[in-house]
């Protein structure tokens, strides 16, 4: 526990975060490029066409990872919210609010691609199917978080209020999701995360996983860039920032 707290406080220090994230960014960007290029090439060119859906299934290489990211980023934000409220770590606040717009964008992309996919599949741009509907509600929750943060004038209160709202959301999202699923189970069943092994062909699966990793790397990169900007803006007056920008 003690070393865990040390680790948290180390990462919680803005100069440390700034320095380490600066060192990590080039590596992350390289990995991101590799996984993205492989995922796209393998997914759009190498993988065989689906015997039922033809080539239109290939949109899953964007849709599915984007939908996963919508949830994943929310979980990251919820963890950041706990860290911020319990240990009062400043970086957690920065991570939370830097992540929210990215999460909202992924939820939005998942909705748009889902609707594009829906056109050839069901012959309509929008069906009230369970996953699209709960993705839409997730997007609303993201937008609520962003709206609250920008509406509160005092920055500290804004951060803490947003953290509380994020936690209220994390309790509610599963309930909302299962309510919507119960309300309407129209979509095809979950095909990747099944306990008895994946049901889709490996040539289709590998590119999907590669894209999922690429999306996660993209999130980390953009989040770090946003967080670095936010940190500089917040710590303008501190000594390490002045030294960083040339000591004047």
């Amino acid at each position, binding site marked *: 526990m003690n070393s865990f707290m040390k680790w948290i406080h180390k990462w919680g220090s803005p100069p440390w975060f700034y320095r380490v994230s600066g060192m990590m960014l080039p590596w992350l960007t390289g990995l991101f490029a590799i996984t993205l290029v492989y995922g796209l090439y393998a997914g759009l060119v190498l993988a065989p066409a689906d015997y039922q859906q033809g080539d239109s299934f290939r949109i899953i290489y964007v849709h599915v990872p984007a939908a996963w990211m919508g949830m994943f980023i929310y979980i990251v934000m919820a963890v950041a919210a706990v860290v911020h409220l319990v240990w009062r770590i400043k970086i957690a606040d920065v991570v939370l609010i830097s992540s929210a717009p990215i999460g909202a964008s992924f939820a939005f992309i998942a909705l748009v691609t889902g609707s594009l996919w829906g056109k050839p599949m069901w012959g309509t741009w929008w069906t009230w199917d369970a996953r699209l509907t709960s993705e839409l509600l997730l997007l609303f929750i993201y937008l609520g978080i962003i709206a609250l943060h920008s509406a509160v*004038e*005092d*920055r*500290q209160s804004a951060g803490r209020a947003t953290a509380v709202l994020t936690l209220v959301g994390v309790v509610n999202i599963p309930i909302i999701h299962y309510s919507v699923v119960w309300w309407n189970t129209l979509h095809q069943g979950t095909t990747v995360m099944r306990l008895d092994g994946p049901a889709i062909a490996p040539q289709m699966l590998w590119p999907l996983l590669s894209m999922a990793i690429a999306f996660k790397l993209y999130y980390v990169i953009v989040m770090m860039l946003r967080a670095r900007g936010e940190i500089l803006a917040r710590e*303008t*007056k501190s000594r390490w920032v002045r030294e960083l920008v040339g000591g004047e």
Partner: protein
Amino acid sequence: MTDLANSTVHLQADSVECSRDDRLLFENLSVEVSGGEALILEGRNGTGKTTLLRILCGLRRPDEGEVRWSGVPIEECAVDFHRHMVYVGHLDGIKRELTALENLRVLQTLSGRGRYTIEEALEAVKLGGFEDIPVHFLSAGQKRRAALARLLVTDARLWVLDEPFTSLDVHGIELVESLMDTHLSAAGALVMTSHHQVHLSAGVVKRLNLSES
């Protein structure tokens, strides 16, 4: 009813720092007040007097440092601290639709009974005869007095007052000053801001000017 003379009063702010947005109001500020002492915060507008008061009574957390009540951080002894502290801020904390009597009864139930009954307290702030009238029929000064009657209906050892003399006339100010004198000579403590000169004849008066720090 607790014996006032026996329990000690000690509020201490230990190197507190607070900034609002990007403006640093104060840092490394330490101040304390004990029974029989009055601490008067001075300074120009915008130097953070109200913010410091709100930190001292636990409405706002300082960015750095901590506030202690009898040596215990106030977040850890909130109920005990709140039982012994009464705060009168810019806002009166009085419901306009209710009578003075109804207002004070709620506050007394929330914070514990004090030396005075509600009727005695209203008498003491010269609101006798007005207790059954909804507060919005009272003048601003009378409303302020109803708010200040709160000081008497609970058993608070520490008074935290933000501009207590607002809306009061000369007689009202003298009245409140005499209440403060009584409180200080009974080993109570007082923290306040005021644009007016404060004339206290009892207790030790300490001053802190936030413009200079």
